C-alpha cells in the first residue's frame, strides 16, 4: 500500500543508528530499542547517566510521553528495522501520570507477546519493566540483563529479509524451485 508506507518510522537518528550496525561484527552485539515513558523510566535513565552508572550500549532510547503511547506498530517496526529486542519502560502500577496508561501498555504487551510468539519471535525479545524516576540502578540492571540475554539468544533473523519488493521485481529473489526436495517416488495419476 504505497500511500501508507513509512507512516510508522523510528525517529531518523534511530534508523541511522540501526543502519550503521554491522551485522557481521564479532562477537554478536545486540541492538535494543527502548521505549521509555518520560515521567518515570526516562527520568530514571537520565539519573543513571547523571550518576555515571555505566550500562550496555546496546540500548537505543526513544522517549514517549507514556508507556500507554506505545503503539504495537512501533514494536514490529523496530524489529523490522533491525532491533534484536524491544524494551518498554513505564511507571509502576498506580503511578501513571495519566492514571492508567501503563495498564494499557501491560495489556497490549501481553497480547503482542503471544502474537509475536506465533511469528517465531522469542518472548525474551520483548520486555516490559516498571521503573520509577528514582530507580536509576534498575535501568542499569534491566538494560544489562536484557543485553546479555539477547547476546546469548543471538540476532533476530527476519525470514523476509530477502523479500523486498524491488528484489522480487529484479528477479533475484531466492525462491527455490520445488524440485530441490528429495521427493518420494513420483507417480502420475
Amino acid at each position, binding site marked *: *500500500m504505497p*500511500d501508507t508506507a513509512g507512516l*510508522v518510522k523510528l525517529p531518523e537518528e534511530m534508523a541511522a543508528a540501526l543502519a550503521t550496525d554491522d551485522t557481521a561484527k564479532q562477537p554478536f552485539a545486540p541492538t535494543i530499542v527502548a521505549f521509555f515513558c518520560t515521567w518515570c523510566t526516562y527520568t530514571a535513565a537520565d539519573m543513571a547517566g547523571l550518576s555515571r552508572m555505566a550500562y550496555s550500549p546496546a540500548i537505543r532510547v526513544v522517549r514517549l510521553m507514556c508507556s500507554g503511547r506505545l503503539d*504495537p506498530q512501533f514494536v514490529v517496526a523496530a524489529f523490522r528495522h533491525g532491533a534484536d529486542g524491544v524494551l518498554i519502560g513505564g511507571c509502576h502500577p498506580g503511578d501513571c501520570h495519566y492514571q492508567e496508561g501503563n495498564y494499557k501498555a501491560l495489556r497490549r504487551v501481553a*497480547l503482542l507477546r503471544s502474537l509475536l510468539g506465533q511469528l517465531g519471535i522469542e518472548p525474551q525479545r520483548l520486555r516490559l519493566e516498571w521503573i520509577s524516576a528514582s530507580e536509576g540502578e534498575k535501568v542499569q540492571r534491566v538494560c544489562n540483563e536484557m543485553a546479555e540475554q539477547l547476546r546469548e539468544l*543471538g540476532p533476530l533473523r527476519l525470514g523476509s529479509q530477502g523479500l523486498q519488493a524491488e528484489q522480487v521485481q529484479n528477479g533475484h529473489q531466492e525462491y527455490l*524451485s520445488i*524440485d530441490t526436495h528429495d521427493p*518420494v517416488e513420483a507417480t502420475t495419476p
Partner: protein
Amino acid sequence: MTKPKVAFYWCASCGGCEEAVVDLDEDLLAATSLVDVVFWPVALDFKREDVEALEDGELVASFINGAVRTSEQEEMVALLRRKSQAVVAFGSCAVLGGIPGLANLYDREAILSTVYREAPSLEVPATTFPMKQTRVDEGELSLPTLWSSVCTLDDVIDVDYYLPGCAPPPRLIWAALSALVEGRLPEKGAVLAPDVALCSECPLSATKPEKLSVSRFRRPHEFLADPELCLLAQGLVCLGPATRAGCEAVCIAGNMPCTGCMGPTTRVTDYGAKALSGIASLLAADDDADITARTAEIVDPVGTFYRYSLPASLLRQRVGETVGNGAIK
C-alpha cells in the same frame, strides 16, 4: 465505437472475488454494455495467447484477485500489467495477501510435506509428490515454481488502485468500474473504499458504550450474541474499529464480528499490530494473572489480527528460529 476492454484474473484465491463480480446483478448487464471483458479465465474461454495478442496498454484495466506465490502467477500478472493502463488489486488477497497469506506462518517444505505426505486423507504410503519436471508417455511435463512465501500483488507488479474486501462489495466494484471507464481516475495508489473505520457505518454503532470495557473475550460459537448490541461490548473480538468501511457491515448484520477483510485505513501501516492494540486496551483486567488468562482467550492472535494481511505486514512471515549465536535451525 469500440468499448473499452478489461480483464479479470485470479491468482492464489478462492473464486469468491469472481462471485462478487457476478453479484453485481443487473449492474453486470450495464457493465457489459460499458466494457468488453476480453479475458476472464473463470467465466470466458479466452487464453493467454489472446492476451499476448493485445497491444501494450490496450486494456483500460485489469482486475487481478488473489495473492501471488507461483512463477506462473508472476508471469500472468506481469503480462497483464504490460497490456493494461491500470491494474486494480482486487480483493483482500491481492491487496494484503489474504487468507492464503497465512501460509507465511509455515515454511514451504513443511506445507508440501503436510499436503503430500502427512495429510490423513492421503493413501498410505503417499506416493505422489509434485515435481518441477515429470516424464509421462506423452513427453515432459513441468510445473510452475512454488515460491518460498506468499506475496501481495504490489510486491510483484506496479499496482494503480486497491479494492479490498473478501470479497469486495459489489457497490464498490461498480463504483470502481464506472470511474475507470468514464476516466474519473483517482490518484494512483488510491484505495477505492471509504477512508474511515467500519464503526462509522455499523448499524450497532449507536449501542457502543461511551467507554468500552471487556471483562473476557468470547468466540462466536460460545454463545448467541445479542444482535441489537455492539458485538465488542459483548466480548466478541470485532475488528470494526481498526478496519476500513465500505462493506456496509454485512458480517455484523449476520451477527458475526468484523474480521478485518477491508484492511487498514491510510493512517495505519501494520493492520494486525494496530487492531491488536485496540482490542487489548479494552480489557478490564489489570493484574498480570488476569491479563494472561484473558489474552489466552484469543487462541490464535496471528489468525485473528493478521487474518487477511500477514504478507502486507511489517514482519511478513514467521522468522527463522535462532539458536545460539544466530545460526538458523
